[in-house]
């Protein structure tokens, strides 16, 4: 590593725990101090210890329950003081009151079991986002307390997923996830979710960003959404067999607010598909499937609108001319949403004259950052586990995509998704729009997924990307076609 000027310190605080996103904020705040070169504040996992070593530090022995702090810069002492202040602020935040700070209610509950007991009859849902290897106990607690549970975390073994879903079936509750990014219950957004108007469409989704695309388009068209029930990306696999999808479909069928169900999924395993199809046929509520890879999500939203008897609008878009002519079909997809990535990759691959398979979509199992011969599309899903291990999701932390944008070739078209809503970056354009403006690509196309009601504001975000020279589409499919066909 570079021989940085100034002092360096590496220390371990035993038994101090904070979640990775909170610590990322602390690291960033410390890095922003004047004269700071490196500030790494993270739990001392193997990964983070290795990162510290890569940065030229020699961390003392520590385990994942300890806090690792590595600092290098002009005034390390000042950084440590600031660290103490930030950590103290985290600890005094609601919900993180520690053992010694018992208030009238007593110390904050330490497990989902005791939190559910404290919440009493009111409690409806547990939202679990602890690291994957620690999910099972919290989820079991929720199910045994009779709560429906959304598991935001990824990295949960599939056997545990099946076990949880079987337990849930016995207890009559729903398990959403693992790796469920999105749910909306009676307007309440859990995880990454858009601000949607209430209405007649219920969504069962094995894909979070897929559900966000469909519901955002429905909202733009004036059709409301009753609930979005995520089931996790593996639910419709052979191992899991659609256990949660089946339950979610039945719940929506019984829900008086839901008049139409949209089922968003990758093409399911045939056996799971049969199980789901059987249930679909037994429902009173019509079901519109949106199987990515077969239908595009925009078409699915349009079909839902037609089924409701609602008009299909022209989806807002703001195309901008290319800066120069790109090599035909040379699209570089830089995605945060896996389903959106797969959808765009499929559309670009369907370019008339393109050889089949002339693109790479890095998804589960694919080589991260895999490249393919020039002149064809190349898609990277930065939300994939391979990129999110040990760092926040790209919908929260733009760093990886900012780097990638700077490296797009001058004869390529950069295509990226920007997903708005609760949980996502509060102002994605603030970091991404300047990178779009500086991007060396022949053209930049943005698929902007969100609603006007979202905290970030669809139109405010669209305007920022337009000003940076990008073409902006609210339909990912339309964005992909536009990028593919640019001349």
């Amino acid at each position, binding site marked *: 590593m570079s021989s940085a000027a100034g002092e360096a310190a590496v220390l371990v605080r035993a038994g101090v725990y904070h979640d990775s996103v909170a610590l990322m904020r602390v690291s960033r705040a410390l890095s922003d101090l004047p004269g700071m070169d490196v500030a790494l504040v993270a739990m001392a996992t193997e990964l983070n210890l290795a990162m510290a070593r890569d940065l030229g530090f020699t961390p003392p022995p520590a385990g994942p329950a300890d806090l690792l702090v590595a600092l290098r810069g002009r005034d390390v002492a000042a950084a440590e003081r600031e660290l103490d202040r930030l950590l103290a602020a985290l600890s005094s935040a609601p919900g993180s009151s520690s053992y010694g700070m018992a208030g009238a209610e007593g110390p904050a509950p330490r497990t989902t079991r005791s939190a559910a007991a404290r919440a009493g009859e009111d409690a409806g849902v547990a939202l679990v986002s602890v690291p994957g290897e620690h999910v099972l106990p919290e989820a079991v607690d929720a199910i045994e307390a009779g709560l429906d549970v959304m598991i935001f975390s990824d990295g949960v073994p599939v056997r545990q997923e099946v076990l949880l879903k079987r337990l849930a079936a016995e207890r009559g509750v729903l398990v959403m996830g693992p790796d469920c990014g999105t749910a909306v219950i009676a307007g309440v957004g859990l995880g990454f979710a858009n*601000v949607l108007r209430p209405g007649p469409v219920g969504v069962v989704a094995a894909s979070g960003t897929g559900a966000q695309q469909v519901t955002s388009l429905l909202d733009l068209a004036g059709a409301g959404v009753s609930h979005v029930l995520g089931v996790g990306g593996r639910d419709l696999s052979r191992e899991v067999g659609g256990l949660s999808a089946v339950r979610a479909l039945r719940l929506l069928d019984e829900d008086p607010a839901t008049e139409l169900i949209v089922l968003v999924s990758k093409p399911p395993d045939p056996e799971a598909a049969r199980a789901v199809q059987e249930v679909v046929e037994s429902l009173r509520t019509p079901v519109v499937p949106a199987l990515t890879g077969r239908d595009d999500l925009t078409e699915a939203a349009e079909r839902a609108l037609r089924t409701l008897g609602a008009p299909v609008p022209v989806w807002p878009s703001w195309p901008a001319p290319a800066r120069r002519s790109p090599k035909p079909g040379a699209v570089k997809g830089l995605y945060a949403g896996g389903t959106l990535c797969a959808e765009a990759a499929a559309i670009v691959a369907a370019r008339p004259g393109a050889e089949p398979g002339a693109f790479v979509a890095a998804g589960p199992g694919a080589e991260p950052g895999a490249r393919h011969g020039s002149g064809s599309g190349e898609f990277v899903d930065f939300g994939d586990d391979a990129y999110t291990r040990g760092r926040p999701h790209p919908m929260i932390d733009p760093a990886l995509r900012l780097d990638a944008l700077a490296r797009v070739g001058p004869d390529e078209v950069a295509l990226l998704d920007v997903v708005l809503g609760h949980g996502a970056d509060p102002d994605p354009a603030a970091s991404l729009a300047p990178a779009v403006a500086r991007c060396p690509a022949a053209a930049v196309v943005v698929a902007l997924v969100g609603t006007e009601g979202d905290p970030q504001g669809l139109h405010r975000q669209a305007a920022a990307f337009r000003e940076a020279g990008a073409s902006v589409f609210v339909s990912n499919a339309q964005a992909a076609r536009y990028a593919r066909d640019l001349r």
Partner: protein
Amino acid sequence: MTVGTRARRPHVHATGAASTAVRPLLDAPRRAARVLAAFPAGAYLQVRTDREPSVIALLAPGATRLPNAVLLAGEPPRLTVGHEASVGDGAVRLGRLSLRASRWWDPAPPLGEADPAGLREAAAGLTPGEPALAGEPAVELLASGCASGRLLDVLTAAERLVGLGPGLTPSGDDVLAGLMVTLRLLGAATGAGRAVWLADWLAATVTYDARTRTTPLSATLLHCAALGQASPEVAAVLRALAGRGPVEPALRRLHGLGHTSGSDLAQGIGIGVRSVLAFCSQGSPSSSGDYT
């Protein structure tokens, strides 16, 4: 209040959960408003418009949710009566505070289908609370009119009840609100078309001159009720009556509202349920015209 301050903007941003009943006010171009009433758990804002709804309730999370409410994510701002404000272009603005909806909730959630026999059974659990207008002749006229099907009696009683009673939400208005919501939602749920038809008549009568007959807040609430919009406590009782949960706990929570508001609303619900059941047993709702 959850606020995020931004260095370059003078506004303090806040968010809340808004009833879709007030979405027309929020989505419209910005209009002037003023604080009509302020209390520890929130405030009522009156918007300068000649349409309804015209009053928005800004309420702390623990407060009773009115159908025209925005539930604040945090403590309510300190306001005084007469405080100038504006509503529209997606936000409520009060001085430096800018409040936006971070989610929407439906004050008239559909009940689904309900079976009249089940409704009759559930209605047995509708114990009366202590309504302020117990024994009031206009209420008795309203009840007998609804039960026996005399439209003239119903509308005459309704005319007398609008604005009857003290306070920001007079008891007469609460009875009418409970009745209208019940006729509309349970009427639709049981397929009693004439209950919905009666709700339409009542809505037209009650909202016609509500603005001059009762308080501004109550006029807005009557307008909401005319569309089937109510507080979640009322919706929960109706959901229970429609066979989607136990009646007793829902009714207990409703009776707990306000001074007598909960019991007054429950009185209206009771009248409505008896009316819906009467329509159901009369059979086909095909010819509403013979209801005189």
